[in-house]
């Protein structure tokens, strides 16, 4: 026990911010920045992909579906390797591990978030889109003003769950030497050498605290939204992303209902 305390008190700064200011920002700070960047950039992309998926034009829906299948049928590690190789090849110069990781996360998360957004759109009663069209609004106008505001609000808890997943996915940056939290922990381990269990246990605990707190927040949000929406439409309460079920198997399945 005293070992654990000693390790934490000696290395807390390294774990928190990496070698900053003597090096790039690392540790938990880097993990969180990676995750926030990843999901923030992925979000608008995911809305576009979700709209393309639900569109009736095959020119839009097929590539979008292929993208989603692809990103979800291939291990994240493979996608990292691809991005690590393709991005420098495409733009002609080397990119840092951090940039690679951000690009990978954006692509990967956009695919998953797209399914969450799609489930939100399809869970909304048909009548909303019908009423908007009956009043003379066009499809995109109705989407923007009527469907998306409701759908996105309803799936906020699922999106928060997806953020938690993103945090967990940043650990793969370790494999390409991104200075995030897991990398920092392995550095501590390499210094100490004799206490691997303690170091990695501390690492697990840190992740647990961060992810668990966010998951609790997501569940609280879900309860609040369910009560707010009870009055009017029969909107299904937003579900934890991992429990949404879909015929295309992935780890973020989605309910499929026909849309008008």
């Amino acid at each position, binding site marked *: 026990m005293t070992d654990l305390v000693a390790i934490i008190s000696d290395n807390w700064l390294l774990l928190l911010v990496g070698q900053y200011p003597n090096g790039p920002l690392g540790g938990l700070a880097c993990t969180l920045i990676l995750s926030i960047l990843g999901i923030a950039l992925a979000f608008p992309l995911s809305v576009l992909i979700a709209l393309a998926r639900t569109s009736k034009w095959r020119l839009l829906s097929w590539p979008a579906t292929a993208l989603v299948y692809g990103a979800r049928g291939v291990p994240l590690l493979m996608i990292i390797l691809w991005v690590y190789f393709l991005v420098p090849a495409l733009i002609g110069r080397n990119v840092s591990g951090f940039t690679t990781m951000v690009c990978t996360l954006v692509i990967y998360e956009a695919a998953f978030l797209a399914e969450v957004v799609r489930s939100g759109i399809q869970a909304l009663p048909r*009548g909303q889109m019908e009423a908007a069209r009956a009043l*003379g609004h066009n*499809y995109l106008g109705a989407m923007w003003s009527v469907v998306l505001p409701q759908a996105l609000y309803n799936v906020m808890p699922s999106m928060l769950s997806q953020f938690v997943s993103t945090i967990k996915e940043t650990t793969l940056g370790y494999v390409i030497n991104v200075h995030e939290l897991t990398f920092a922990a392995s550095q501590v381990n390499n210094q100490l050498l004799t206490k691997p269990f303690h170091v990695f246990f501390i690492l697990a605990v840190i992740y647990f605290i961060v992810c668990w707190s966010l998951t609790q927040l997501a569940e609280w949000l879900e309860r609040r939204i369910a009560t707010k929406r*009870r009055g009017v439409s029969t909107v299904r309460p937003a579900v934890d992303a991992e429990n949404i079920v879909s015929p295309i198997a992935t780890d973020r399945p989605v309910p499929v209902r026909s849309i008008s």
Partner: protein
Amino acid sequence: MISFSKVNKWYGDYHALVDVTARVNKGEVVVVCGPSGSGKSTLIRTVNRLEEIQSGELTFDGRSVHAPMSGSELNKLRSHIGFVFQSFNLFPHMSVVENVMFSPIRVNSMGKSEARDKALSLLERVGLASKAGAYPAQLSGGQQQRVAIARALAMEPPAMLFDEPTSALDPEMVGEVLAVMRSLANDGMTMMCVTHEMGFAREVADCVWFMDAGSILEVADPQTFFKQPQHPRAQRFLSDLRTH
């Protein structure tokens, strides 16, 4: 105002509308009734093309509704047709007055303050001016449906379509909605209503269409229809209603 000429619709093999031919004249109030599954809702939804037809002609205010047209032309046409849904379909994330003003601003390019004034006067007309700032979740079913009527009226349509407007309401709220519809009829609005409310039909309608299995079997004025229906299925329908 609305004319159907040999309109046919199929859902796969199921013949939902069979050679429907009828007219709603300007200023008329037509009630469409019949047993469930008769195609009444399908018929009214073809008028603003929420349902497609496979053959026949349907015109609204002189315009052919099912002719090939661009998306924006269809949107424009729909904005001239008032439609009230059975499940109201108010937009829950907008307040009552926003629900009413939103489409005139966005679709008809009305100015914001002009739209707001109009919305408030329409809400006054349906008796809900005091609820302008409330959200749909805070309103009862009857109140929500009245807002939905105001929302449709805000687009200044020459005719209003009602698809079972009171079927989803608790009985004590049916009256307030029918009262609004009655006052609209008295003001000369052309109306086509699918409804089970026979009292309303008897008092307000100019013409009753009885439908069964996709065809209009009888067209008559309310006095004749309710006293002496001609078609045997109409007779059975009315007697079923009475014995409840």
